[in-house]
């Protein structure tokens, strides 16, 4: 009873002072809902994930089933919603399966690389001194290496399975997160409450986990979305260049690669534009909505927002 009364009182006080009401996560959620494009992004992405991960369960055609009665069938033809390719693969089904791979590679590699970046950034910022200097020089070096050619070579070195593509994208995806987190940690380390817990004899790991980590989490979430859009684009570029996911397993990138042979038209003179259009359009839509989502999250998670609104 006393507790809820106190809550009421706090709410009242906040209302009078004109500040938004609610817990931190409620406020973040409210702010996020105000961002129309970000809501659109979230809805589209959830739809895409459901579509690609559960869609294949509801269709009988597999990604490598061939329908020889319908070769180069245009979109909206019978049985083939988005048409077929040169050996009668159903484009719609392959887009579902391909999306599974593309999204999986993107999500796993961006999350893993962000976590690696977070850990290195925390260590570098908190330890400071020679370790910080060494790690930051290493980040400088990694950032000066031309990324895309190196990805090409790495995917040759590691081979081209799903796992190795994830590894390749992770190895070169953590540096920006590290820089950001390290910068924040450096300033947080000097803050009064960290000083206070140091003087109280709190051990260093606990200080990092309890006092520094929660403060860098918002910015890390935003960076994860940026990394995600980047990872999806890189995977599709690699697969497009023939070094990523290998056919017959489809990914949005290698479907585009497959369509390259018919870009000038088939031997019968038709132009199967749908082979090129749909996979690329899905990459575009996915990345676009990830970016919308990231923008909304940045707005919502910005710690300055309470005083501004």
């Amino acid at each position, binding site marked *: 009873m006393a507790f809820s009364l106190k809550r009421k009182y706090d709410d009242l006080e906040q209302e009078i002072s004109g500040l938004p009401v609610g817990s931190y996560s409620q406020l973040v959620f409210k702010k996020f809902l105000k961002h129309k494009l970000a809501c659109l992004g979230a809805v589209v992405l959830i739809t895409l994930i459901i579509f690609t991960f559960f869609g294949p369960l509801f269709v009988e055609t597999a990604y490598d089933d061939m329908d020889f009665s319908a070769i180069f069938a245009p979109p909206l033809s019978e049985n083939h919603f988005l048409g077929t390719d040169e050996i009668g693969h159903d484009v719609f089904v392959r887009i579902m399966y391909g999306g599974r791979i593309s999204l999986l590679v993107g999500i796993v590699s961006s999350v893993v690389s962000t976590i690696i970046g977070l850990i290195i950034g925390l260590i570098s910022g908190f330890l400071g001194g020679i370790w910080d200097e060494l790690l930051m020089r290493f980040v400088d070096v990694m950032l000066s290496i031309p990324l895309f050619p190196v990805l090409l070579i790495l995917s040759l070195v590691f081979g081209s399975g799903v796992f190795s593509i994830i590894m390749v994208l992770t190895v070169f995806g953590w540096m920006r997160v590290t820089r950001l987190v390290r910068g924040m940690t450096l300033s947080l380390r000097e803050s009064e409450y960290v000083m206070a817990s140091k003087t109280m004899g709190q051990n260093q790991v606990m200080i990092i986990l309890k006092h520094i980590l929660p403060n860098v989490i918002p910015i890390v979430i935003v960076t994860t979305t940026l990394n995600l859009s980047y990872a999806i684009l890189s995977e599709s570029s690699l697969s497009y260049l023939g070094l990523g996911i290998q056919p017959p397993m489809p990914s949005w990138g290698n479907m585009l690669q497959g*369509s390259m042979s018919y870009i000038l038209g088939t031997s019968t003179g038709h132009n199967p534009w749908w082979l090129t259009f749909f996979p690329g359009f899905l990459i575009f839509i996915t*990345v676009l909505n990830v*970016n919308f989502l990231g923008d909304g999250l940045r707005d919502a998670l910005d710690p300055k927002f309470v005083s501004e609104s």
Partner: protein
Amino acid sequence: MKSYFFKRTLELVPIFFVISIIIFMLLNAMPGDPLLQMRMDNPRAFAQDPERLAELREYYHLDDPLIVKYFDWLKNILIGDLGFSSQYKIPVSELIFSRLPNTLLLTVTAWIIGIVLALPIGIYAAVKKYSVFDYSTTVFAFVGISLPSFWFALMAIILFGVILQWLPISGLETYGVTGFWNVFLDRFRHLIMPAIVLGFIQVAFWVRYIRAALLEVLDQDYIRTAYAKGANERRVIIRHALRNAMIPIITIIALDIPYFFGGALIVETVFAWPGMGRLMYNAVLASDYNLAINCLMFLAIITLLSNLLADVLYVVVDPRIKLDERKRG
């Protein structure tokens, strides 16, 4: 200023060495045999004489320890000897210098397209903050950032090259065109699509950046003072706001030079443009070791130099930093 430039250049030296080690390790981890091309070109000679292979391995120092190979390579690139390409059978330096102008033509054109489009759009969006124009610029920027360049290129080829047949779809020039103006026009028509595709994506990044940089400046007190003193909007924006906003903008544009080379790899591959990016892509695929490692190192050096350029430009265009330097020195 001079001492700052000198200091920054010196700092590049250790980074250069670490990068060279990483690139060397990467290339040595690459599967494939440098002699493969040779064996494929001349299978019979190798079949008849099995010892020849061992001799050649000895001759090219293929079985030396990695560390010896590294220092050999480093010594050679420092004296400018980049070795032979196993794929093209000509010196690598010759290949790089024959392809570099094509890449420069493409990237510089794209760069100019990028700046010419991004500057006015970004400035106008900042000045008319929260207008319809501003919102559509934001959406446009999101679209540009999210476009996969190869898909954009392919769709452009299908639309303008195949369906409408306005522009040639690949290569640098049409064979057999003569006469100065015809050649010029032909080159130009080949250049348009790749350059626009490469430039367009950069426009999206820059527009947002320019808008943000200008908005920050427009908030400053001295802008309000300038308005209060009765200066008209045009003058305030060009003389007062833009001059200050240009400092971060110039830096970011210089920092983006390597992205053009990286992006050029994909665009060059799609449009079969004979430039550095495509050269390197083919070298990697064909395990043309000498060519791949030196192209990669070349790109790394360009990246380092453009970082240096960005740092130096930052000091040059911002008089406040220079003053600081003078005080200290």
